[in-house]
């Protein structure tokens, strides 16, 4: 974790008149990591990305990409970044090879390097057989691949991709994810997406934005654990006594009565730091008191649950 960060964002803010699109956002992306950038529509993801890629200047705050300031060293930032915008804008009248050549020239690559790199990225994005096709004849998936190919042309240290797998078919999505995973290590990748499985598969870290602010960041595992799901326990025994007995166990934060208050069988939800020892402790306690344990099950945490909960407007306001 001591490696220098490739993207450093400090209190980045963008306002459009009275509307605050991005509100004092700070985060870091360490070199060589793939970071997922999540959030509901209108959360300010694209605005943040556009500030990082020098499309628009921030209202206040600062950001450094590959060691260069996005405001004062904009051209250097743009040299060191590969940016795939959400809509994948292309010149439709050009052939794929012409377009890639044009983009490579804008990046200042010489003729020999251009030819070599175009062949390489075309092979990596499965475009080799379509290099001669005019872009307007390509399907959405192929166009998306041209976009991905284009950002890799100059082998930039930092890649920013806004929903790169939109429009690809399932097998292509799998290939694209594999490609992004391969890029990790050599490249720092900021990946904006709506697809949560994608994040779990390729990202080492997740940043979640909602209403212009960062509401959570961490590894996918950390975030899943933070959903605070518990152990569901079904016991035959007096509900209130069962509840207080479990509550007394070391490591239990809270016991919620799900059903069966006063009945012979009660269902409880135990929240706390979920460890295997805790499950054993609950089983022992129930057995010692002479009640019978009918079921005990750890509820699986998903990133989706966490995402829905954290981006809920009610919970942000609180």
């Amino acid at each position: 974790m001591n490696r220098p960060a490739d993207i450093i964002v400090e209190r980045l803010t963008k306002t459009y008149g009275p509307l605050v699109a991005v509100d004092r956002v700070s985060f870091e992306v360490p070199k060589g990591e793939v970071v997922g950038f999540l959030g509901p529509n209108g959360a300010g993801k694209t605005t943040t990305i556009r500030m990082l890629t020098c499309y628009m200047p921030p209202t206040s705050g600062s950001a450094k990409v590959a060691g260069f300031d996005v405001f004062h060293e904009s051209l250097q930032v743009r040299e060191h970044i590969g940016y795939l915008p959400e809509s994948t804008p292309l010149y439709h009248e050009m052939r794929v090879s012409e377009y890639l050549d044009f983009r490579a020239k804008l990046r200042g690559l010489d003729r020999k390097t251009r030819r070599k790199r175009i062949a390489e990225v075309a092979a990596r994005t499965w475009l080799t057989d379509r290099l001669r096709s005019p872009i307007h004849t390509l399907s959405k998936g192929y166009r998306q691949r041209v976009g991905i190919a284009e950002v890799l042309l100059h082998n930039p240290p930092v890649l920013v991709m806004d929903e790169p797998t939109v429009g690809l078919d399932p097998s292509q999505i799998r290939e694209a994810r594999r490609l992004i995973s391969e890029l990790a290590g050599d490249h720092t990748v900021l990946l904006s997406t709506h697809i949560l499985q994608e994040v779990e598969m390729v990202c080492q870290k997740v940043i979640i934005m909602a209403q212009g602010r960062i509401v959570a960041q961490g590894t996918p595992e950390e975030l899943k654990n933070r959903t605070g799901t518990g152990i569901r326990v079904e016991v035959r025994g007096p509900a209130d006594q069962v509840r207080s007995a479990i509550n007394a166990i070391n490591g239990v934060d809270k016991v919620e009565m799900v059903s069966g208050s006063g009945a012979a069988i009660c269902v409880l939800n135990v929240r706390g730091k979920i460890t295997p020892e805790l499950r054993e402790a609950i089983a022992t306690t129930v057995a010692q008191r002479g009640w019978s344990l009918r079921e005990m099950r750890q509820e699986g945490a998903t990133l989706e649950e966490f995402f829905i909960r954290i981006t809920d407007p009610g919970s942000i306001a609180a």
Partner: protein
Amino acid sequence: MSRTLTIARREFTSLFYLPVAYLVLFLFLLYMGILFGMFIFYPGAPSELRGVIDFSRFGLFIIVPLMTMSFFADEYSSGRIEMLRTSPITEFQLVLGKFIGASLFYLVLVASTLIYVGLLAIYGHPDWLQTAASYLGLILMGCMFVSIGLFFSACTQNQFVAATASILTLGVFSIISELSTRLWGEISIFNWFSIPLRAPLYYLGVGPHIADFSKGVVDTSHLAYFLVFTGLFLFLTYLLLESKKWR
């Protein structure tokens, strides 16, 4: 500089894929052909391009905007402006590159009229220096028109709005000199202070400036007129692109 030329080359070659470019080519050839038939190609006419060059602006003020209308407007509406702006090129390189690309296409248009010069040489004895000066004027005027067309294309993401605004502006530039001799001569404020209008409006127009070129006179004041307006609108386009960042 090489990145500017990269942009220029892409714009130039892409025009050949656009149907509107062929419409432009067709209209230009048609209009210039009519002028040639009217002013030159009849017995006893002087062997010079004067009438064609003088009247060319009344066609060019419509033809050039048709060519330039998509240059920036289409980049905005397609979202490609995001790709261009995040490339390691400055706004100035982008504007200059597009200007060079459009001007090159205009040169192709102009080159197509060389066939008339050939006819002149066959049937008469044109003054070559006068012909060269005429072409210099035609090219400089085209560059100014291209620059104004690019400016309006950068104003909006709607090509038709861009074309309409440039046609109106270029129309004013084309005809204001002729109108100024018929319009009121001055603005009078309470009969106390008056601003002369006739001469400024006359010299604001393209007419008197292109007329000298077609006579074979290369006057620095006319050179300056075309260069200043070309530069001014390129600069305004650059400012416009820069300012759009902040919105």
